[in-house]
């Protein structure tokens, strides 16, 4: 038999989360909770496994295809299991004017990954503007924001990732 999607603890968190999400919308508009529900699933599992997408779809009373359509549209959802640390580097105009392309190249060399690649520990991605242009260059690690980065500052941040 396939392993269950959730541990009992995760199941509790998911059920409570779904109930809270649905309470924010009119009763005939359950499907509106799609983005928060996918985020909840990803917070619990670290990504969006197919059986999780089907489960979310059931709770929101839509087809699994609809859940997949939404999940594949937005870049923050992971349809494949990412590395333990997802690093999103902004290289948009304002950040590049403050060295972002060079910072990305440094990360690629240091992690042994090209942008868009992943290993067990890291997923490295080039991303679009993170609304932090005045404190460029910047990046996010598992959605935690780091800004005004120098090589020394970035090295110190990476050293803390075990």
């Amino acid at each position, binding site marked *: 038999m396939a392993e269950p999607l959730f541990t009992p603890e995760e199941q509790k968190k998911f059920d409570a989360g779904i109930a809270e999400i649905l309470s*924010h919308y*009119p009763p005939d*508009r359950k*499907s*509106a*909770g*799609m*983005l*928060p529900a*996918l*985020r909840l699933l990803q917070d619990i599992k670290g990504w969006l496994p197919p059986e999780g997408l089907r489960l979310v779809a059931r709770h*929101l009373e*839509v087809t699994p295809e609809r859940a997949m*359509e*939404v999940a594949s*549209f*937005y*870049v*923050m*959802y992971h349809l494949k299991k990412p590395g333990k640390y997802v690093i*999103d580097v902004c*290289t*948009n*105009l*304002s950040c*590049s*004017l*403050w*060295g*972002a*392309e*060079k*910072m990305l190249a*440094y990360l690629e060399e240091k992690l042994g990954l090209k942008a868009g690649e992943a290993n067990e520990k890291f997923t490295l991605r080039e*991303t*679009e*503007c*993170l*609304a*932090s*242009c*005045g*404190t*460029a*260059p910047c990046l*996010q690690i598992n*959605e*935690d*924001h780091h800004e005004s980065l*120098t*090589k020394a500052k970035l090295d110190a941040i990476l050293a803390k990732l075990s």
Partner: protein
Amino acid sequence: MASTAKAIEPIISAAWGKPQSWTLDSYRQRGGYEALKKALEMQPAAIIDEVKKSNLRGRGGAGFPTGLKWSFVPKDSPKPKYLAVNGDESEPGTFKDRYILSDDPHMMLEGIAIASYALGVHTCYVYLRGEFKFQAQRAQAAIDEAYKAGIFGKKLMGKDYELNVYLVRGAGAYICGEETALLESLEGKKGWPRLKPPFPAVVGLFGCPTVVNNVETLASVPAVFQKGADAYAKLGTDKSGGTRLVCLSGSVNRPGVYEVSMFTTLAELIFDDKYGRGMPAGRKVKAVIPGGSSAPVLGADELDVAMEFEALKVKQTMAGSGGVIVMDDATCMVRSLWRVARFYAEESCGQCTPCREGTPWQTRLLRKIEEGRGEPGDIDMLSNVASSIAPYPPIGLGNTICALGDAAALPTHSFLMRFRDEFEAHIREKRCPFGDKPWGSFGDWS
């Protein structure tokens, strides 16, 4: 240059950076929620009139008069009405709403309360871009405080009027800052913009009348009632009241968010000691994008212009979201435009053919030119592709459902208009004249 720009008294950013500025206590000590008290003693229609009189205009990009937008909501509709707050701040060069959310979220919440009461709204969704994790935590904590203090919930600050405010995080899609795409996303769908009309004020969220307002716009509302609409209007120009936040980034010594008057010029913002403090010695401005990456670029001789909607419109560009990006004379215009073009190709939602096909085409041509493989005819081809998405000037002729098409074509048109010789030099020399240093004074990293 020394400081000659006229100083203003900040309204929106006054408390940023001060200890605990994001808490209800701090906001109340500064007179917070007194404007809501005043508004709750007025008739809803009078509140809308007051906002009209204040000349407050939307701070998200389009600069639409806020009071007028509010007045489009039908009074006699039996359907519920909604307020959707646009906190999807994603226009490259724009980073102001993030500080309202992290450093003074109650100012926005008070604006939400006043707007909701005026519009007959009982449910408000605050939509923040997914990457705003920290900002979402601060905003949610403020919402929780407001519920606890009896400002939101079954009663609106003691008045028999239910208002619920829910925070929703997006998941990484620039297009969701477009108001109808935002509504689609709030309905749990991919962010595909809707055809207008009908406008959201009539058919919006769940098919109901909906007002979509930017974070800064709503954060500006309390000041209208504290100061009075006339006093607020007088801070600005005839058609644009109050103060505004501008975001300065790129090749300047002191990037950051500055609250300025509607009379402050681009040159003052870039060079004045109070603001950007110019660039390193020996360097000059080459190009300035005045309102987020979608706004047509200006040249160095066009900076004596106020950062205000009407003034920038005269220059065939826009005040947009207040994102001012400076490029100095050590910056490659082809490389810069290529990066901007990549952004729109990445963020095109794929719904309309001119944008879906045209944005990657622009990107391919620009890459080819930047990498020294450009051929005679490529520049005309590029111009042609951009025109097929959206001709220019004027702004707003796009062949697509939403303005992302215009946003993607305007940089191309305006860079080619002002810097065509640089594109030609790339093709003639079969290389980038800036070599491996295309990014200006601050483009190195160590």
